[in-house]
């Protein structure tokens, strides 16, 4: 019995360790809902899910598999009042696109990766606008969507180093990724 319990604890501990990038990002997303009303409340907060999808697709897709991206999108769908599945689709699209272009991002300088994120974020905001307009059956004013993309791009250099620390914690040998 004690052996079984020990095995279960080890299994849970490993699962928790492996899920750390997802759990940390999901917790950050929930905490970012705190009503701080920056700039009078009319400047949207950054979309941490897009940053996570891009970063982990470039640097360590093995640590953030599609299931984690999907779950992150569902968390965002639960948090925001929007239609279910919406952010899951957007995050998976960002993840898939970045993964397909990963060969161009690996080995770039910080500035290069940042510019890459700006491009991917821009495409993601266009996809968000088109998908939202399709769902609501009318043209959504795109201003706030692009404003959020700009805020997210500005915040990316602050968030990415935190993800990088997490990545180092997860594996001290990048070659083993």
């Amino acid at each position, binding site marked *: 019995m004690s052996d079984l319990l020990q095995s279960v604890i080890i299994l849970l501990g490993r699962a928790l360790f492996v899920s750390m990038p997802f759990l940390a990002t999901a917790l950050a997303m929930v905490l970012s*809902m705190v*009503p701080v009303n920056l700039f009078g409340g009319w400047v949207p907060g950054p979309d941490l899910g897009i940053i996570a999808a891009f970063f982990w697709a470039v640097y360590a897709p093995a640590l953030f598999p*599609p299931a984690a991206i999907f779950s992150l999108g569902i968390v965002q769908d639960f*948090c925001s*009042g929007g*239609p279910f599945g919406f952010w899951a*689709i957007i995050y998976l699209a960002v993840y898939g696109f970045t993964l397909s272009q990963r060969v161009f991002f690996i080995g770039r300088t910080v500035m290069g990766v940042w510019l890459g994120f700006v491009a991917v974020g821009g495409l993601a905001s266009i996809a968000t606008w088109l998908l939202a307009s399709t769902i609501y059956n009318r043209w*959504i004013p795109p*201003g706030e969507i692009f404003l959020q993309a700009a805020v997210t791009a500005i915040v990316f250099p602050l968030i990415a180093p935190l993800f990088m620390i997490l990545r180092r914690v997860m594996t001290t040998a990048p070659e083993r990724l």
Partner: protein
Amino acid sequence: MAWDRKQRRKLSDAGNWAFVTSNLSFLFFVVLAVAIMIASRAQIGIFDSAREAVNDAATPLYELAAQPAAMFKRWGQGLDSLLSVYEENQRLREENARLLAKQNELVELERKVARYEDLLKAQTDAPVASVAARVIADASGPFVHTVLVNAGHDQGIAKGQAVVDELGLIGRVIASGNRSARILLLTDLNSRIPVMVEGVNLKAILTGDNSVHPTLEYLPAGARIPAGARVVTTPDGGVFPPGIPVGVVASDSRAPRVNLYTGEGRADFVRILRYTAQVDVNSAPAEPLPGAITEQPAPGAAVAPTPEAVVPAAAVPTAQATPPVHATRRPPPKPKRTKPANLDEPFSPPAATAAAAPRPAVVQAASPTTN
């Protein structure tokens, strides 16, 4: 970096979309996400129930996180006040002098109104109970403007109830769990609020479009709304109490926009009005009170006008007004609706609406009861 070189070569050889064919789990989750979105659009209530259950469960976390944020905000506001204490003091002195002058006028007007109500045997608006709640999460996105509050079914909160702050209407409840509720703000794309423009007595629908200034829609053709006119709620649909201040008309145009009283900031604390008027279009019109003006809707009757009770809007230039009909000469109508209108559906304006005279704001008369 050996892994990188090997992986890069592999990806280059197989093409950019090799990951799709080599990663079936990715495809599986894309299909799952699309299926969930389609299912949720098909109005399967299980998703909404799940969302409210999750929000209920996360309410303690939201509350915990909101407290330090509120503390920092108070510190910031305190610092601002400290830096501008002299100017603020001067401004408050001037405002105080102005309000004292207005107070005498107000007392006189209150006396007159009470006298007229007594003469007309007018029914006064029933006090509206309210529940105070704290905004615990700003659950907004780039095309969704909602907030979560820490009050739900347990406190008597229900879908459709109006939500106000100290300045005016901020939105309505769109979903309620046991301990939390989601408020759709007036600026949200899906927000539709029946309102009336005071002064010109025109009814309209305040339509959010994700901008700071919602628009007034379904106005009569050719109607001109003067800038600065006050916009308040109407009881049409039996959802909102009449007279809750919403804002002022910002521009004098064919599609006027409204400067909301709630301003650009978002409130920390709100009040949810437990207004319980029920729409029952099948019920017979109420007996007119002795001495009451029967051509107008009974004051205080906070229900939508019945089809039989619809009268021409003589005082209101409504383009869709219809001639009067007499209830006694018509067969009973088919049942149409016996519950409050579902405001989640796009609002379609009624074919004709009874003219409602400007009424005093019920918020001022609302009971201070706070559960």
